């Protein structure tokens, strides 16, 4: 596997690790075929994402995709976040080796599900 520098950097220095107690958008997704698992926690304030954290189990690009995502999401609006597509994520990561695209799929799936779980009315402005 020839991984990009960005991917390797996220493996060595995973960003925003942890479970966020006061998140207002949450997802937990599993790739049942390979067992990879992602938990994603997002906090919106004033329609913008002000923080995101994650936990991940699985191969390198799974870990790195979601680690990258937690940084990328910062400051994004709901719409911007929900417009992120798999191919763009792969580009932002500097590409993925053949047979590893499913890692980006899983990260995007986590993002979409988290956004689905977001209920603006119950938004906590504190």
């Amino acid at each position, binding site marked *: *596997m020839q*991984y990009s520098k960005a991917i*390797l950097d996220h*493996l*060595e220095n*995973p960003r925003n*690790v942890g*479970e966020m107690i006061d998140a207002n958008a949450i997802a*937990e997704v599993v*790739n049942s*075929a*390979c*067992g*990879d*698992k*992602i*938990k994603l926690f997002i906090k919106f304030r004033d329609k913008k994402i002000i923080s995101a954290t*994650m*936990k*991940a*189990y*699985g*191969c*390198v690009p799974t*870990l790195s995709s979601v*680690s990258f995502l937690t940084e990328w999401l910062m400051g994004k609006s709901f719409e911007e976040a929900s417009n992120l597509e798999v191919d763009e994520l792969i580009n932002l990561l500097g590409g993925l080796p053949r*047979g*590893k*695209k*499913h890692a980006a*799929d899983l990260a995007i799936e986590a993002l979409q599900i988290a956004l689905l779980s977001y209920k603006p009315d119950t938004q906590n402005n504190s």
Partner: protein
Amino acid sequence: MIETHLQSRVYLDNSASTKIAPEVLEVMLPYFTEQFGNASSIHSFGQQAKGAVDEARRQVASLIGADFNEIIFLSGGTEADNLAIRGIAESYRSKGNHIITSEFEHPAVRNTCLAFEKQGFRVTYLPIYENGLVRIEDIKSVITNDTILISIMHANNEVGTIQPIEEIGALVKEIRLERKNLFFHTDAVQSVGKIPIDVKSLGVDLLSLSSHKIHGPKGIGALYLRKGIRITSQLTGGRHERERRAGTENVPAIVGLGQSAELAKENLEKFQEIKSLRDYFEAGVAKLIPEIKFNGDKEHRLANISNISFSYIEGEALLIALDLKGIAVSTGSACSSGSTQPSPVLVAMGLSKEMVRGSIRFSFSRYTTKQEIDYVLSVLPEVVARLRNVSPLYKQAMAKEK
């Protein structure tokens, strides 16, 4: 940062391939540059090449207690396994169509057996127990009058467990008193040069070995074929290797294999010193890292392999994280195209899916030093901790414990 690490890379993946010994490369070089004749040529270029091939054949034969004419050179361990199984199955097909092997074999054996199932052969895959060993009673209970071949590997490539080949060999000999056409093959690619091997006392009829696992060049190996056994050639063409394997002799590589066999023989005792290094490593890991599992029988195991499952993390991630620290290892987990192919060996040993995914093989060589091990011990706990910290499984496990 990667560059810095590359300068002091620690290679602990010697079961995958080894570095060529300088003495081996040295004896190979003249056969590239000056003595480049085709060993089948009659002129002096050819005869020099042929002489070198003969000498290498003696060296390899001597390492395993075989006769000169019982060694067939070919392109590697995979081809040796294929020639053994295909060659016997095709040659003795009229005598029976049953093959016994284990759930535990290298793909070169396993996939070849699978191919013969499609051709009307019946194949029994013996179970492997938690210790990674077959049981002789199991063989006794499945063997029939149709059995023509038993293929059980000598030492396993993932966990290093050493099978009771001598006992199986004795059983085969006993059965052969009554029915002739039963043959015993062992894939000794991992054990040759690491433990003393004598084909006669092991009681095997065919044995595979590969040069690049013993500090020889890649792309060359040998099959030991006991005198008097016919085998259907799988590569037809010129009359090389006494018509068992056609193809221009790979002279430099054969010379290299011969030399690596000789060096391995000389270093056989010294190789056992690796055991104390390995045990030192395992003790260190056990002390420094909680929630791990050592895989494979403690006793019947090669001196140079340590296979460890790290709970809550995934092998490839750990492998790459170690690679970034300049440490090369391998894993029993390979996730590709969205589905994980867990090592059938570890699965056969009864490990849970997660423990298979979290398994790492550290494999040492006679060049591995204590300094290198200390470096690994200084890095490994921190890397494991970092990945566990990211892992959602770890959190859950912690929670449960509380």
